[in-house]
């Protein structure tokens, strides 16, 4: 008998009675004994409540929670420009966070509601509705900082910290090959744990936890060098529109309570302008006439058609993908004619709905943004 086996036997003799009965007569095979000890080790940790959720387990929980978040909020917006901005700003915060080595990822949920969620392991999601408020990188950093703080403080993991269902879940594939029924039971139990986390995320943490995330997120944004007041600016914008608890941060405390606890800081200047997607130039080889009906079925938000350039002006046929960033008609007046569906053009003074066949002029120097989906299309003439 090797010294390792002897040690294992001795260790088992000491540990087993306290945990559960082990029949040593059937366990003289060292490999079986090692396996049993591993099980006991896990059980012991759970019994003592000493087991934390390690990096691999955290990733497993986080991935599963992320799937539920994506499913509940209409999938992801596959917009490479927004993804780049989200991730570059998000990663620039994450590198100075308390957990810089997590696999941080940031993505946009296809929902008009205003909310954000974080899944353990470094996955952060914000809705299109909330992203539209981020008219500066500092504001975006304020929003993302809050979610990063939930992850670095392990707020969601604390809900399942002592959950036995998590034990061994990272090895479920191997477990399935040994005992399918047991693996299915384990997966079902794991599903309940995921449910606990998503339940907390969708219902909301307790107010104090949210206030802590506000405070830590603001501090992180400052550490990374963003102008203070970003989160406050986003919350103030929402409050100014009239708080709707169904569609705005439904899983967070009331806006007034959050604003009251944040320092009274000025909003960062709006400095982000979304780049205009590269337009596909329509061939005019067939003559100067263009049939919009032929172009409309091929139109996507990511690929507008450049249909003419009269006197240096640009005429685009474009579609929409939710709310645009706030823009300003710096170069001159813009005109927009909706040719399919309807588009909302929001000015600082309020929104204007533009329906099919209607025409709108946006005066030079005016700040505006458009809200519409891929079913809407408009011809936009700009200098």
């Amino acid at each position, binding site marked *: 008998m090797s010294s390792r086996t002897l040690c294992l036997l001795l260790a088992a003799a000491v540990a087993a009675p306290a945990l559960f009965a082990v029949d040593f007569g059937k366990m003289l095979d060292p490999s079986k004994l090692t396996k049993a000890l591993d099980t006991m080790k896990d059980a012991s940790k759970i019994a003592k409540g000493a087991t934390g959720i390690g990096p691999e387990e955290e990733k497993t929980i986080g991935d599963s929670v992320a799937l539920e978040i994506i499913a509940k909020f209409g999938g*992801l917006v596959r917009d490479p420009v927004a993804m780049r901005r989200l991730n570059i700003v998000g990663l620039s915060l994450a590198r100075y966070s308390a957990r810089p080595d997590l696999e941080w990822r940031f993505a946009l949920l296809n929902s008009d509601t205003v909310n954000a969620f974080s899944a353990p392991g470094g996955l952060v999601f914000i809705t299109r509705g909330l992203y539209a408020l981020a008219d500066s990188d500092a504001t975006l950093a304020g929003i993302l900082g809050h979610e990063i703080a939930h992850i670095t403080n392990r707020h969601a993991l604390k809900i399942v910290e002592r959950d036995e269902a998590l034990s061994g879940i990272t090895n479920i594939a191997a477990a399935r090959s040994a005992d399918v029924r047991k693996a299915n039971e384990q997966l079902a139990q*794991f599903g309940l744990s995921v449910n606990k986390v998503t339940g907390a995320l969708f219902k909301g943490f307790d107010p104090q936890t949210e206030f802590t995330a506000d405070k830590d997120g603001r501090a992180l944004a400052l550490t990374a060098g963003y102008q203070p007041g970003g989160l406050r600016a986003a919350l103030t914008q929402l409050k100014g529109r009239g708080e709707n608890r169904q569609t705005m941060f439904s899983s967070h405390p009331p806006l007034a309570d959050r604003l009251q606890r944040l320092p009274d800081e000025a909003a960062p200047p709006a400095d982000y302008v979304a780049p205009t997607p590269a337009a596909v130039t329509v061939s005019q080889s067939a003559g100067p006439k263009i049939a919009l009906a032929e172009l409309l079925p091929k139109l996507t938000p990511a690929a507008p058609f450049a249909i003419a350039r009269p006197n240096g002006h640009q005429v685009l046929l474009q579609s929409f993908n939710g709310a645009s960033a706030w823009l300003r008609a710096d170069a001159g007046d813009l005109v927009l004619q909706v040719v399919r569906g309807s588009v909302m053009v929001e000015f600082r003074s309020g929104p204007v709905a533009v329906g099919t066949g209607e025409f709108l002029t946006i005066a030079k120097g005016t700040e505006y943004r458009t809200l519409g989906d891929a079913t809407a299309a408009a011809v936009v003439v700009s200098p």
Partner: protein
Amino acid sequence: MKTPVRSAVLATAFLAATALFAYEVGGAAYTKRIETKLLAEPKPLAGAAGKLGFGHKLKVEEVQGAWLRVSEGDVAGWVFAGNLSDTKPADIKGADGLGLSASTTTATAAARPLSPAALEYATSRNLATVRSDFDWMVATCAAFSNDDVDAYLKETKRGEYMETKPEAAK
């Protein structure tokens, strides 16, 4: 071209950030990354003076704005305060026995797909469509490198690229 507004914003951000760092000479700071580089000067592009692993307790020898000169035994150098922690980071180990310090989570792991158990979970919950979104997210995010983040921070003068002597607002 730098505008007066931009200068004022940078100055505000710098002052707010440095006010956050509570480090004092003689105090302690802790490394929080798997690897933390110490530099020969308080500049992001200075030469290397050493490197330390996760969770090391360092003595703060000098403070210059958002930069600290720290030491541990024979190893000493400058580091941006945002790269350290004022509290000892927890190295929580899971049932797999792996803690953060032993984690293989590095830049090379940035494209890690859905974990096997989450994959089983996705199948059991009929989340195939969502899985496609998740995979797209992983692939898209894998394209963003540390160099991209560095370039952004450098261009916007944030993080360790913050100006240590901000211009007065004009």
